[in-house]
């Protein structure tokens, strides 16, 4: 299956792109091979766009963040009128099937959006979970590694922990610091990988996680939302 191959490609590319020492993350280098051979590999043809419903899950609140050039930017101005794919990542994440997988999947999604001519109707936002380490400069580097096109894929970081916490709460994204046995912060965060599909009026319409982050599914969902004439319904009057 096409999706099967794509998952394999993302993981392989994640290794190369981030140059992570496999031993540091996994004692068994062959793991990823087995992983891509079927353990967590989508083996299905996604339902066609427009043949299913994506009801409103929540409303995403706009937040003012810093982009990779250091400029302050309101997420609403990036997302308004477009379908946004919003992910929470951090560049030091060594969990290859977490943030790096998301990076590779989003790169593939970016390419697919271009191929299908959806680049003006959709936008990608990756918001860092790590305010301290992920400076705009660091995000710019990360964006280059993953081939993020500045007009289509925005890498963002919060100006303060307070702003980040508000964003995390708005999306329902968990994040917990990981401490070592002596109680020292390790620089790592425990979080469930979540990628949010937000419609043209700021409503969350789907959420993906490791294992369901399949570009073709996301593209079909974007088309489904774009075709949904009831997209402007608000939560209050449902």
């Amino acid at each position, binding site marked *: 299956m096409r999706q099967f191959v794509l998952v394999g490609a993302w993981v392989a590319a994640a290794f190369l792109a981030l140059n992570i020492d496999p031993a540091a993350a996994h004692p068994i280098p062959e793991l990823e091979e*087995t*992983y891509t051979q079927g353990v967590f590999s*989508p083996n299905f043809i996604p*339902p066609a766009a427009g*043949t299913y419903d994506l*009801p409103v899950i929540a409303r995403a609140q706009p937040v003012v963040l810093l982009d990779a050039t250091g400029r302050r930017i309101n997420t609403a101005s990036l997302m308004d009128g477009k379908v946004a794919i919003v992910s929470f990542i951090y560049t030091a994440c060594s969990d290859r099937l977490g943030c790096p997988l998301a990076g590779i999947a989003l790169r593939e999604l970016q390419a697919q959006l271009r191929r299908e001519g959806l680049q003006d109707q959709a936008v990608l936002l990756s918001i860092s979970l790590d305010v301290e380490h992920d400076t705009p400069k660091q995000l710019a580097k990360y964006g280059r590694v993953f081939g993020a096109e500045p007009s289509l894929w925005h890498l963002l970081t919060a100006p303060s922990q307070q702003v980040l916490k508000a964003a995390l709460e708005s999306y329902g994204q968990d994040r917990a610091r990981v401490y070592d046995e002596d109680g020292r912060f390790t620089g790592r965060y425990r979080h*469930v990988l979540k990628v949010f599909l937000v419609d043209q009026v700021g409503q969350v319409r789907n959420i993906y996680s490791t*294992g369901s982050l399949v570009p073709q599914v996301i593209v079909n969902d974007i088309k489904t939302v774009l075709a949904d004439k009831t997209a402007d319904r608000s939560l209050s009057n449902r």
Partner: protein
Amino acid sequence: MRHTAFSTYPKRGFWILATILLLMAAPAAADETCQSPFLPKITGQEDYVYVWTLGIEGVADGNDSLVTVDVNPTSKRYGQIIHRTPVPGRHEAHHAGFTDDRRHLWAGGLDDSHIFIFDVASNPARPKLVKTITSFVKDTGGLVGPHTFYALPGRMLITALSNATDSSGRTGLAEYSNEGRFIRTIWMPKEAPYGYDVRVNINLNRMLTSTFTGKNNYMRPLGELVKDTEAMKAFGDTVVVWDFHARKPLQVLQVPGAPLELRWALQPNHYYAFTSTALAHQLTLIYQQGDGTWAAKSIADLGDTLPVDISIAPDDSKLYVASFMDGRLRVYDISDPFKPKLIEQVKVGESANMVSESWDGARLYVTNSLLSKWDKPGDYWLKAYAWENGKLVHKFTTDFNSVGRAHLMNFGSKALRAKPE
């Protein structure tokens, strides 16, 4: 770092962890093997078992409660109840499930359809009731009896058992956001109206639902019910195969006699699942055929024992069946899923009901309450077993008579504590 693979692999899915464990042959750890693929698993030694417990009038405060049992063998309080979080009143406490980030446990009442949400991350030993949803029936347009709580990314998928119009078994599924906002109701198809359990296979984009009976049966005394021939016909006899992403039914499989719990095989390319039928006492295999369609086949007769819960080993080698009538836990070798072989059985005790297995398949926990109107009067407990030298060995019994009737179990870990920043 804690010695759970959870903290080592904090955000990986079910299948990935399964692979890691198989490759490393590492000791790992609740019914962790049936949890949603979107939920991080506790793969090492679990510290706690959370037991969603029915209150009994005259026992303690009489309320339903979430009871924490310390199950870490290195703890001084191993096998003891270390905390109890009551909710106001009795609601027919039954099943419960974690949100996808494992920060909250949702627990349902089958009688009044209330849903209780506990914070289990701030202090995993001492869950705290943080929200109660009392509007499930109204929200969902008439679903009654929230049963299985199944984590989806950012959402909770909930099966119901009944409806508010006639209290029969016609029912559906509901989705809520993790924050408790109602999203949608999906009614079961007309040709297969009953509901019970739900499990998703994300590799195949397939979801299975099973069937039980309506509130006018499950809230009726068992002795009276079994004598009512008409009422006994009102049990489900189907398993529905769904397109998970579209939430659309694809196929209705005939599985007579109330197929209850559903357990997907966990290994790559094992495109099958098991269920057991409470009334027809068959172990049934649900499997994908060569043409991609699905079929159901009875693979073993479990005897007239009222099989209630099943659990699958992480390597798909064994299936556990707990039976209410004879209080036994039977272990089947399912290496060939079409030809299960009974390889072990232990007498757990009167009215054995739920069985929960650690992720590594090494430890098992059993409780013995089914439904308040169906239980035989007697002792209530949680019993722990472990595999030692090829035999299932009893490790401890936790007496529940001072707190209530022990039903569904979920595992907790100290490593899942989220410290405030």
